[in-house]
């Protein structure tokens, strides 16, 4: 049997395993292992199993994963998201749709702490949804804005999405973090513009909140200052060359723990819970990564990535069209697959093609992560939508999906702008870390 045929059978089996709800990591692991056994021998498959399990689990650069997760979890249990929201609310709450804009700003701030979209949507949903209900916000806007705002978590650094992409494609984590800054700000602005337009077209969607005095504004901003300082120190430290990403993640986690303890919000019990949750999440992420490193050599042996590359080259279209086609497949896959799983499944196939076409891998990484974000709010899977549903139990799912639709188009608009102007993504990494 030819390598290509074994590869196609392997991919078909992988698809079936995913459909029948076998966890993504176990499906990838078993197909990769069986494929190498079929194409080489059992000894090679077992040797890979032993070496990859230990090598990936002891990878120095992957230490950022549990540390950033810990930072996000501690920030979440200590209610730091609330302080970010309060500060944004004090500034923009009095405008029409202001609470929704404050939610997006709060999500962006929390994203800079946690690096996780789900954590951003969950914590910000708990904080802001009740407040928007109190001011009679249309529940399509209130739920839509939380689900969409949460997606900023994997674009605004530190982002677990970027870390995984960097590991899979051997890119610099620092450059990717830096590349995510301007697109993150652009997306944030697009979300706020969407809210403004929606509330301008339908004033009942987001009535203005009460005015706040200058004293209140100052107090709320001062309340959020420690959190903002942690973000600036952590991310700024990487760019200034003071910390490596691993050190920055530990400094960030350490500072958040100190602030939480100093303010009395972090007890030994809540800290232990946050640490244990971080270990569990790390295990899930790392098992997928280990599995990807079992599946990738199998795909390489089958030459399927080469075939895909040859096929795309045979189309005789420019690199941008190929890029658009690849992103289109992510948009379609995003309706069914979890973003992170999609990344590890497709990167071994797409990345060689991208490299061959001379497309900048950092730019591609940002575009892919943004497209994965769109999957987080695309029906029928839309993880963030389900997270919001768990907070707003009385709002029908269809209404939440209706609420996120304008934001989905805002993301599509951002994606198009980023494709048209690669310099938005590349200017910071190229000027600051070249």
């Amino acid at each position, binding site marked *: 049997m030819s390598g290509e045929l074994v590869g196609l059978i392997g991919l078909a089996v992988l698809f079936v395993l995913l459909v*029948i709800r076998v966890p993504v990591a176990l499906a990838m692991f078993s197909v990769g292992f069986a494929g190498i056994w079929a194409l080489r021998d059992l000894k090679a498959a077992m040797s890979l199993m032993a070496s990859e*399990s230990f090598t990936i689990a*002891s990878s120095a650069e992957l230490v950022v994963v549990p540390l950033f997760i810990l930072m996000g979890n501690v920030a979440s249990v200590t209610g730091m998201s609330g302080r970010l929201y309060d500060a944004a609310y004090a500034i923009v709450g009095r405008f029409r749709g202001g609470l929704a804009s404050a939610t997006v700003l709060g999500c962006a701030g929390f994203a800079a702490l946690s690096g996780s979209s789900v954590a951003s949507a969950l914590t910000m949903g708990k904080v802001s949804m009740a407040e928007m209900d109190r001011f009679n916000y249309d529940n399509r806007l209130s739920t839509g804005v939380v689900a969409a705002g949460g997606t900023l978590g994997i674009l605004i650094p530190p982002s677990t999405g970027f870390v995984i992409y960097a590991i899979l494609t051997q890119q610099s984590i620092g450059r990717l973090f830096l590349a995510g800054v301007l697109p993150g700000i652009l997306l944030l602005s697009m979300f706020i513009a969407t809210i403004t337009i929606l509330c301008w077209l339908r004033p009942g969607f987001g009535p203005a909140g009460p005015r706040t005095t200058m004293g209140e504004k100052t107090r709320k901003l001062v309340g959020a200052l420690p959190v903002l300082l942690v973000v600036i120190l952590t991310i700024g430290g990487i760019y200034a060359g003071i910390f490596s990403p691993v050190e920055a993640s530990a400094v960030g986690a350490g500072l958040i723990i100190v602030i939480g303890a100093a303010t009395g919000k972090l007890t030994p019990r809540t800290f232990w819970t946050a640490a244990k949750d971080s270990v569990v999440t790390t*295990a899930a992420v790392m098992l997928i990564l280990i599995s990807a490193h079992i599946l990738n050599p199998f795909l390489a042996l089958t030459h399927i990535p080469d075939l895909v590359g040859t096929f795309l080259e045979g189309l005789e279209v420019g690199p941008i069209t190929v890029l658009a086609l690849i992103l289109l497949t992510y948009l379609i896959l995003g309706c069914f697959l*979890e973003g992170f799983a999609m990344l590890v499944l497709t990167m071994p196939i797409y990345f060689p093609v991208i490299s061959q076409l001379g497309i900048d891998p950092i730019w591609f990484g940002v575009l892919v992560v943004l497209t994965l974000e769109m999957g987080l709010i695309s029906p029928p899977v839309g993880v963030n939508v389900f997270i919001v549903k768990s907070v707003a139990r009385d709002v029908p799912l269809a209404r939440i999906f209706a609420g996120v639709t304008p934001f989905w188009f805002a993301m599509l608009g951002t994606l198009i702008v980023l494709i048209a102007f690669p310099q938005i993504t590349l200017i910071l990494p190229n000027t600051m870390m070249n």
Partner: protein
Amino acid sequence: MPRCVVNKTMLATLRKLADRLISLSALAGTLGLIFVTLVVLADVIGRAFGAPLRGAQDFYQMGMVIIVFGGMALCDKLGGHVAVDVFEDHFPDAFNHWLNIFAALLGAVIFAGIAYTVYDSSKLSQMLKLATNIVRMPKWYFQWALSIMALITAIGMALRAVELALSGPHGRARREFGE
């Protein structure tokens, strides 16, 4: 005593034992995370004062092994592994039930395989005296730790498969493990 009562008692004892092992493994992982955080922080602070922690990278690399595999069994117990559940509602209950058993068994086999192969490769590490770069910590100690924690995960998954098989499509195990 009827055989099914004996089976249930035995299963309950096994579950209790497995849960303790899973908790112990998660405890090791959590302590590992706290240790790694402290090591990196000590290194950064020490460096600021011209005295970085010697071998910090060795410590946090090996600590990572404990974090990753320490949390694996608990992650499985809590249903934390990512799965595509779009089609779940379209399958009959009985089919979903057997799929759960299949996934648990597949996981058990994979983790038993990891435990065995890593233990096997630890013998080579021991023979070659492989150690970390700076403080020369023997790598095989951490391979043993990985093997033990992978084995605990495999036991937890195998036990879950047995519980699911005995409990039927609407049984206790299915609900308890969040599937």
